[in-house]
């Protein structure tokens, strides 16, 4: 059994981080340059970490599979970033942001981590403003805010509908500065394919150059993974096509525990699926719910009518009806499930019946079209490009889609996994969002981890490692890891079966969506756990990967990622099966209240499930880290 010590500091909640910063060991400036740190990934968490660690004086190597760090998928986040600045004087505070996040996560995250996140949120905004991020401003020149789901204050900072882009470009500029200064060695088009563990500590990685196929070994004093989430296990999602689980999955197979893999976020407002050829789903920012009203016809027979011909009295603004206090701004898991319910009742709209209206006519009447255009113009443009419909004139049609994974590698309070020396940041870890993430909190967490947590906590680990003690990349563990990477690549290319990789990715996605999506049942999950091993077996027998390993080979890249996704899918279903409760995005139909709300089981499941790899073909071990609530009372989430 893995040893899971959360290392939450003692003392009152609000003092833990401040006191912990004093208690942690420091590395003196002259010694910092003797340590090498590998950072994998260059999204918000990776680039902010790489830049900041380099500023501190560590030697940093940054590996990204993209052609430039600026392409990481943080770039696509639209709506905003939360911070407890209380610039609006509307009653916000660190405690309120902490409380909203804990409650939004349905009481399945750690209090201490979330409080720290809320504390440093204010520093993030300062940092980004100093980098020149062009946040939205009021006429007086001060920062503007808007509201996001699960909160009753306006604490979301934004840059039009491109907040993630601007924050990432800020972090990328900081990273670029350090690359230019020679403090970060940047390896683009370089995909991590294995973690190297020496004497129980993470000491390096094996990397494939995606352009030349060259495989190289890199040693370091510590390894930081900031490789994002694994929502592409569903094939169709709002993720970029390249987003994958490979780095964290290979780390899992080297001993890092995978926590709450079944906790996935289905975002309520995405453009519905149109056909089998589809490669991706596009999000319509949650910020649209500030002004858009969600509805379906009251009667199923009206669902194919022109929406303009459906009288006000015949419309069901179901979120406003079911959750009057939060209305259209209730949390994502709740809004998604409500959409599923009305579609299951036969009231869904559009060709497939899997859609609901997001209607701006009231807002256009109230504010005028120019004001709506100013706030959301780029989103309306995207909607038009994809659907060929003008949302200023007809309501948008939207449907939930996979958007984020709250689960990820298990980390302690210092963001270190159970493998010493392996740190995991951002969406790749499990730490802060519990069973459901609130809108505008992913950007906050990525930057909190990279700018303000890892720079302190990594020193506490490195101070225990003698300078210059890192192993050579010529060691046996490194060579063994390289051999296993080569073996997998050769095996994939040798199959020469009858189906392209996409065939298996689509089938995997359908199994996951049907049985491990918005609603899960024991029966469905058990069926998935029969179908997935069969799919895995067929994949390894019948996939066709063309080309060679010695050049750019996009089919080969995707094949290895899909192979990992199929294995991860099994773990997700197993986790969902064993968690006999409903909480946040994890909805087990057997566990619900009569009104259809999640029925948590705080007696048996108020814990983190951290899965431990037990070897190929062996059942993984389920470890539990109890969640102890000292400040907040666990209660039924109420947004009514």
């Amino acid at each position: 059994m893995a040893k899971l010590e959360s290392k939450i500091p003692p003392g009152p909640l609000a003092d833990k981080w401040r006191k912990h910063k004093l208690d942690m060991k420091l590395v003196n400036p002259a010694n910092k340059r003797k340590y090498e740190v590998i950072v994998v990934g260059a999204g918000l968490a990776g680039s902010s970490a790489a830049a900041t660690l380099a500023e501190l004086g560590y030697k940093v190597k940054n590996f990204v599979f993209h052609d430039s760090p600026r392409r990481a998928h943080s770039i696509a986040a639209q709506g905003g970033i939360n911070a407890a600045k209380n610039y609006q004087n509307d009653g916000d505070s660190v405690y309120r942001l902490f409380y909203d996040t804990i409650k939004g996560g349905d009481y399945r995250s750690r209090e201490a981590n979330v409080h720290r996140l809320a504390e440093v949120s204010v520093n993030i905004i300062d940092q980004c403003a100093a980098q020149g991020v062009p946040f939205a401003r009021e006429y007086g020149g001060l920062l503007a805010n808007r509201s996001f789901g699960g909160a009753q204050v306006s604490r979301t900072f934004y840059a039009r509908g491109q907040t993630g882009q601007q924050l990432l470009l800020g972090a990328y500029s900081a990273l670029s500065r350090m690359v230019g200064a020679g403090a970060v060695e940047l390896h683009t088009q370089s995909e991590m394919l294995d973690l190297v563990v020496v004497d129980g500590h993470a000491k390096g990685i094996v990397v494939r150059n995606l352009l030349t196929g060259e495989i190289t070994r890199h040693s370091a004093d510590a390894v930081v993974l900031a490789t994002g989430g694994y929502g592409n296990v569903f094939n169709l999602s709002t993720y970029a096509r390249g987003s994958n689980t490979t780095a964290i999955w290979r780390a899992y197979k080297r001993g890092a525990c995978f926590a709450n893999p079944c906790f996935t976020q289905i975002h309520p407002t995405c453009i519905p699926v149109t056909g089998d050829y589809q490669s991706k789903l596009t999000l319509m920012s949650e910020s649209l719910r500030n002004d858009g009203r969600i509805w379906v016809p009251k009667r199923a027979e009206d669902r194919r009518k022109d929406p303009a011909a459906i009288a006000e009295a015949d419309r069901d603004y179901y979120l406003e009806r079911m959750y009057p206090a939060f209305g259209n701004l209730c949390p994502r898991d709740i809004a998604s499930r409500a959409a599923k319910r009305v579609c299951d009742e036969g009231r869904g709209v559009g060709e497939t019946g899997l859609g609901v209206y997001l209607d701006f006519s009231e807002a256009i009447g109230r504010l005028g079209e120019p004001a709506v255009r100013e706030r959301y113009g780029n989103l309306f443009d995207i909607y038009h490009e994809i659907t060929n419909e003008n949302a200023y004139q007809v309501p948008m049609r939207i449907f939930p889609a996979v958007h984020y994974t709250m689960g990820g590698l298990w980390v302690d309070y210092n963001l270190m996994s159970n493998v010493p020396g392996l740190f995991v940041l951002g969406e790749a870890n499990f730490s802060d969002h519990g069973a459901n993430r609130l809108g505008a909190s992913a950007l906050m967490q990525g930057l909190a981890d990279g700018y303000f947590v890892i720079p302190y906590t990594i020193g506490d680990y490195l101070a225990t490692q003698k300078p210059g003690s890192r192993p050579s990349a010529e060691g046996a563990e490194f060579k063994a890891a390289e051999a296993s990477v080569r073996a997998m690549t050769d095996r994939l290319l040798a199959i020469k079966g009858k189906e392209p990789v996409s065939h298996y990715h689509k089938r995997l996605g359908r199994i996951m969506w049907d049985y491990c999506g918005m609603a899960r049942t024991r029966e469905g999950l058990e069926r998935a756990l029969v179908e997935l091993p069969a799919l895995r077996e067929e994949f390894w027998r019948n996939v066709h990967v063309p080309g060679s390993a010695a050049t750019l080979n996009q089919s080969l890249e995707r094949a290895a990622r899909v192979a990992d996704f199929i294995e991860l899918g099994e773990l997700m279903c197993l986790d969902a099966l064993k968690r006999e409760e409903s909480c946040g995005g994890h909805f087990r139909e057997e566990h619900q209240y009569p009104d259809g709300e999640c029925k948590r089981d705080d007696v048996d499941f108020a814990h983190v499930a951290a899965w431990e790899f037990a070897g190929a073909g062996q059942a993984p071990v389920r470890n539990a880290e109890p969640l102890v609530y000292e400040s907040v009372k666990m209660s039924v989430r109420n947004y009514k």
Partner: protein
Amino acid sequence: MVAASTPAPFTVTLRVWRQAGPGQSGAFVDYVAKDLNPDMSFLEMLDVVNDELTLKGEEPIAFAHDCREGICGTCSLVIDGKPHGPHRGVASCQTYMRSFKNGDLIVIEPYRVRAFPVIKDLVTDRTAFDSIQQAGGFITARTGAAPDANAIPVAKGVADLAMDAAQCIGCGACAAACKNASAMLFVAAKVSHLGLMPQGQPERDRRVLAMVQTMDGLGFGSCTNQYECSAACPKLISHDFISRLNRDYVKASFRTALETVAADGGGEG
């Protein structure tokens, strides 16, 4: 208006640049793409073609892509001679097959820019843009040293204009559209964004000189004010920013020259 009824599938011919590797000679090859749906994206059409090639035992067409929502800047196709295809203000990945009709011949090429060498088929190497950024495309703000975000107000008009420039996605279409393969719009966007913000003032001169010098050194051509760059830009970044870049560059050159004179003739007065 309810969703339209199922559209009729159609067929186009693709004339695609195939090149096995860097520095090798390439050629156009024709492929027929059948059973297309107008709601497919251009890249989804290529996915379908690639799956067919794979099953026929041929190597699929390599093309760069990632987010498929027009923001990451990875996709970089030249479609019928136009970077990012027929429509203004969208990236290749946001081009839909409804823009084409049955029987069309569609020519697909990589960017033709000396500073962006072809890696394979339609994929080019754009690290030159990262090099320009590393030379000066930043505001030095050490983590942890920032004042309160509201301590420095920024007029809304200035922030909005900075944002207009800052939304550059770094795709390189500007250079691909330019007959001189100039990167001026890319550099102008970053120089303008950072130079407009009050936080960007201390490094303003140094930034513009370093970025322009690096751009020139990487083999990009000069700007001759044709503005094809803005027309091809998926974010419609205005060529007015190029004027701003030129002004900043001239001012910075003078000021730097004067500082040198002052330093030479100086001494403690």
